[in-house]
């Protein structure tokens, strides 16, 4: 950028306005990026596998709990 001392007060305000205007313009220039379909799919697959593992482990847990309870009942009787 130019040496600021070369501008008088009025010009410096003008420079500031130009910079602000360019920032606004640049922000408008940002394009929407398309989502990475392959990466998304891979991610989705990973998520569904994790969910499956979680579900099965939960099922295992409930079965274990059932067995424990049955054992307790047997012992009491």
């Amino acid at each position, binding site marked *: *950028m*130019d040496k*600021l001392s*070369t*501008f008088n*007060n*009025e*010009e*410096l*305000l*003008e*420079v*500031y306005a*130009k*910079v*602000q205007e*360019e*920032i606004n*313009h*640049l*922000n408008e*220039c*940002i*394009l*929407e*990026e*398309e989502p*990475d379909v392959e990466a998304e799919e891979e991610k989705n697959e990973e998520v569904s596998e994790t969910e499956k593992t979680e579900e099965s482990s939960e099922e295992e847990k409930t079965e274990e709990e059932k067995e424990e309870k049955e054992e307790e009942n047997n012992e009491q009787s």
Partner: protein
Amino acid sequence: MSRVDESNLLLEIESINDYIDNFELERKSGTKALKKKFHKEAVEGRNGYVKEKIDLYEKYKRILLVELENRSNVLLPQNKNDKYAERKAQLNKLQELLIYKNPFVSNNFRLGFYRLIYAIKENTSLEELNSIVDNYVAIFTRMGIKLSAEDFDYTMFTKDYFSTYFGSVEAADRKAKFDKVYWECPKLVLEIKQCLLAILKKYEKKINEYTKVHEGELVRENEVDIAHIEEVYNLTRKSLEDDIDSDEYTILDDFLKGNHSINDYLKDSASRGKIFDSFVASGSYEELSVDDKLKFKENIVELYHTLNILKKYYKYETIITDLVEKYNNRATVKGNFANLEKELDKDDKEREKLNKEYEKSCGIGFLAKESSDKQNLAKVKSNEIFDKLMTDLANYDEAKISVDLDKNLKESANVHDLFKVALSSYSYLVRTLTKINEEDPNFDLEKEIDDYIDFVCDPNGNFLDGIFAFNNLDITETISKKYRLVGINITKEKIDREVIDTLLNDVSLIYLIQNIENNSITMENIKFICDVNKIKPIDLSSGLI
């Protein structure tokens, strides 16, 4: 072309924008998948470039803001408000002396008694009332007089309340006693007010002696020759007001607060030119010679002050019309005044008699016998006589102002004399100012009294000395003619009560421009600071100097 248009920055912006605009986002040949891939990568590439430039420009912005703030801070004027406050306090002391010199003002007014007493209204709270009495007693203490409950024997009710007031400083004790007495005497607050006035009569001689002593103290304190107090006061007030009006800090603060818009004040403003021209009799300010421009400036300063006085004159005009009417009817009123005085005297004697009867019925005095029936009867009669006394007092007060006018005024009196004479009756002033401000929900009597005294003492109002009060008065015609004679284009219609604000706004604009031109702060610098303020608000009070 400005230096900004030729700057490297604009070249850089142009090149950035060119690069962005020409960034290839589409591939013309190849399969659909390839084209899609190309586009996706191109978008990412362009966005990366844009984001990099945003970061760079945000950095520029920060650097520029620091530079702008530094440059504006260098221009910020010094805050001299503390110094002005000191000078104002000094001026107030001189005003106190000026009031001492006003022959129409009573010593009770001068010493501050009336200010305290007339602040008491029927709905004054007990806390306020006690505070007023504290201050009242304190003035007597300064005079070397120690007041006691015995002094407050205006009625059996006031005596009863003040026996507790002087016996205990506990608010709860005082409240309990007040509540007890109140049921027997619902006008207790007003009786206390009358009681305070009666004590002043009792100590009148001592008050007069002390006033002289106090005046001497004030003269010594102010190191001023009392014979020239008016000149000293006028010079001090004018100099302070001029300094405040042209103070750079105050002017800038007004612009920053949005009280004025800087664009209306700049040389290239169309409205500014029109306003200047509208006051020039020949129609064009720019065509005036250098000498005539100087004269115009002086006349505008005078007109600015005159219009401000005229605006206040409109506010207090009812005082003039009322006093003129009272003066014209003085002969009739004077004839009846002796009767009113007699009636009031009779009421007072009756009140004193009832006080004695009450004491007797309490078993106090020679051969006195305690009787609760007689006590209650005295109380009932005391309430009755107080009501009558208040009615007679109102008539007496109303008539007294006419008698005072007869004593203090001549047919040749001017408008200023009438405003000064109004200070002779504090109760009249209170009644009139309350009526003038009856629609103001924020009415503050003490402030209004101060404003009125300020108006009466204002050296800019000296032109009122030249206007006879008993001639058929057309003040707008007198003022407009006077200014037309010096080439200032105003008509009586333009300074009429209803429209004076519009003209005053225009005169104030020229007055402010002249004050800025006489200063080291320029219009351009004010505009620059205001522009920086829009980007980042400047806190003048934080002392950025």
